[in-house]
């Protein structure tokens, strides 16, 4: 199995970084807490305040009053259920070792701890076995005592239970919990970033409908960033489609005056004298060139907008190629260039023959234009139909290869308009092939010259 990329180069992934930091932080916090709690004793105390204090003081007063009024022994008084119902009262004498309890207690409970608190103001004291409230000083005939109310912990509280778990279990739980927490937390952070990354990639490759998948309820910076990004993409899409539509609209509108121009030229030619005929011919020629350009622009726009209806019919690709070659061979001969053909295609596929023919014609014309001597056409078929057209010209700068199929893109040295092209040939070819779900790739050959590789899928 292939090792995933994120495993080999973890430092390249923000997700892993964030995840690791969270996790380490959580683990460190837990470890520190555990370590610190080991150091400190499990006994704690806090100032007693509020109704608890009032209650305790009232109990102390009652004991004093009852003892004074009824002349009973203090032990009898505190054992009476009226005072010690549901609670344990403990009197610790000023004199060391003298003490009284409202009822006997189990041996586990070590009340000697409370000796240390006798001089303090009333406290709430936590120990492992019980909680104690006190001391409150009371004076009874038996002497001076300090009253505590003891609350035995019948059930072990959660934290104590947790504390008593074996250390290895505690560590495992801490590790798993922090691992999951960190994972979800960092994934929550990274998911929108990944979505943005993918969308930006798609946009860069020309898919203008791509949008980042960011929920509207997300309010943090990433949510805002995602929505801003989507707004940007929408703006971009609108701008580009408006620009393309404008080009198509202008071209369309140009056709009416161009038709009139051609008619008027025709009329002038009927009446003109010989001296003017040459100029009129020139006007006609330029009008035809304009006509061709407009037709090309419209075809590219239709193909790009995918609004061209393909008139599909099952056709032998070879027949279409032969048709195109008939015309193109003649042109190559006129330029004293040699066109060689290798291979044959037997398959018949459903296609729009006019479009396929215009794609091949444009690519071949382009090759003839830039070839020094030879143009090589290679035909083959296996899983798909492959048509490769190579010339032996100068080739194209690698940086410009991608842009070559953009409408009106010309390389600097190809910018002379005399070659007669409209600058739309490859754009038409690429779009025509894409309309058939095929691909057109441009490549420089090692020995120089450009190769156009066309792949047409075989569909039944």
């Amino acid at each position, binding site marked *: 199995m292939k090792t995933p990329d994120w495993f080999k180069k973890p430092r390249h992934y923000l997700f892993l970084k964030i995840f690791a930091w969270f996790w380490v932080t959580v683990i460190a916090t837990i470890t520190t807490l555990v370590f610190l709690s080991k150091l400190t004793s499990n006994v704690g105390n806090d100032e007693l305040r509020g109704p608890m204090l009032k209650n305790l003081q009232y109990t102390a007063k009652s004991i004093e009053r009852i003892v004074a009024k009824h002349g009973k022994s203090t032990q009898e008084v505190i054992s009476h259920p009226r005072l010690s119902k549901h609670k344990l009262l403990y009197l610790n004498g000023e004199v060391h070792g003298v003490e009284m309890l409202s009822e006997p207690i189990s041996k586990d409970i070590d009340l000697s701890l409370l000796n240390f608190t006798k001089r303090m103001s009333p406290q709430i004291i936590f120990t492992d076995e019980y909680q104690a409230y006190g001391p409150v000083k009371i004076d009874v005939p038996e002497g001076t005592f300090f009253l505590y109310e003891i609350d035995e912990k019948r059930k072990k509280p959660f934290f104590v239970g947790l504390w008593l778990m074996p250390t290895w279990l505690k560590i495992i739980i801490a590790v798993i919990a922090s691992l999951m927490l960190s994972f979800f937390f960092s994934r929550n952070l990274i998911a929108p970033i990944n979505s943005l990354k993918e969308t930006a990639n798609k946009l860069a490759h020309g898919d203008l409908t791509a949008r980042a998948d960011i929920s509207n309820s997300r309010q943090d910076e990433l949510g805002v960033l995602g929505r801003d990004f989507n707004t940007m993409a929408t703006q971009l899409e609108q701008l580009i489609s408006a620009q393309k539509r404008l080009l198509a609209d202008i071209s*369309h509108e140009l*056709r*009416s005056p*161009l*038709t*009139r*121009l*051609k*008619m*008027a*030229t*025709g*009329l002038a030619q*009927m009446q003109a004298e010989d001296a003017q005929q040459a100029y009129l011919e020139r006007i006609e020629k330029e*009008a*035809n060139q304009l*006509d061709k350009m407009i*037709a090309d622009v*419209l075809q590219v726009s*239709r193909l790009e907008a995918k609004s*061209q*209806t393909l*008139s599909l019919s099952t056709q032998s690709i070879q*027949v279409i190629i032969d*048709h195109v070659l008939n015309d193109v061979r003649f042109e190559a001969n006129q330029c004293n260039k040699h066109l060689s053909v290798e291979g044959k295609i037997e398959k018949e596929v459903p296609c729009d*023959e*006019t479009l396929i*023919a215009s794609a091949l014609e444009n690519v071949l014309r382009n090759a003839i234009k830039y070839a020094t001597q030879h143009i090589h056409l290679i035909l083959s078929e296996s899983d798909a139909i492959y048509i490769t057209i190579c010339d032996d010209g100068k080739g194209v700068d690698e940086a410009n290869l991608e842009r070559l199929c953009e409408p009106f893109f010309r390389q600097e040295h190809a910018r002379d308009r005399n070659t007669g092209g409209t600058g739309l040939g490859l754009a038409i070819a690429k779009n025509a092939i894409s309309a058939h779900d095929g691909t057109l790739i441009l490549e420089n050959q090692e020995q120089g010259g450009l190769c156009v590789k066309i792949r047409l899928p075989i569909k039944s």
Partner: protein
Amino acid sequence: MKLLMIDDDTGLCELLSEYLTAQGFAVDCFHDGAEGLAHALNHNYELILLDVMLPSMDGFEVLKQLRQKKLTPVIMLTAKGEDFDRIFGLELGADDYIPKPFNHRELLARVKAITRRIEHINSLSQQQTSSLSVNSIHINLATREASVNENTLSLTGTEYEILAMLVQHAGEVISKEQISEQVLGRRLAPFDRSIDMHVSNIRKKIAEHVNNERIKTMRGSGYVLIQGE
């Protein structure tokens, strides 16, 4: 020769009628679909030049309504130049189409091809009243009528010409190039589907009356009318 032009481009209409007038045609121009249709139905024109994009009623609608009553030859002026438009026009019974912006010479050649045909037939009908009959398809060269088993076929000029050509050469393979040159007066462009459209229209109309196929397609070469059952 009286021509009718229906196009909303007034400038083009003026120029075109001046040009065609100089070539010896009389041209009437209308810039509105409904108006043009009414005029086409009420008068006898030799040929109609019909634009697709028209106010009030588009060219296809005009053609559809015209064909219900008349078989006047129609050349569609398709500004869009899209395949869909052309095929749709031919299906509705247009005789030919010419994409805008067109070359004046090309337009003249097509107009002449159609009108020459009509003249030729008119002169034929005056001289002889011959008729042909092959495989229950009957062609009256004088009246320019075709019928199958005594049922008259309502064919457009171009469709009639193609059928007549196939009947005259029954049993022989006629190439699309031959048909295009003789009937449309122009060379067949590569991947041109117009002849196929016309033949398909003829087949449909024959199929309304008889079941078995009379016109056979020879792939890559052309069409043949079968002799005998």
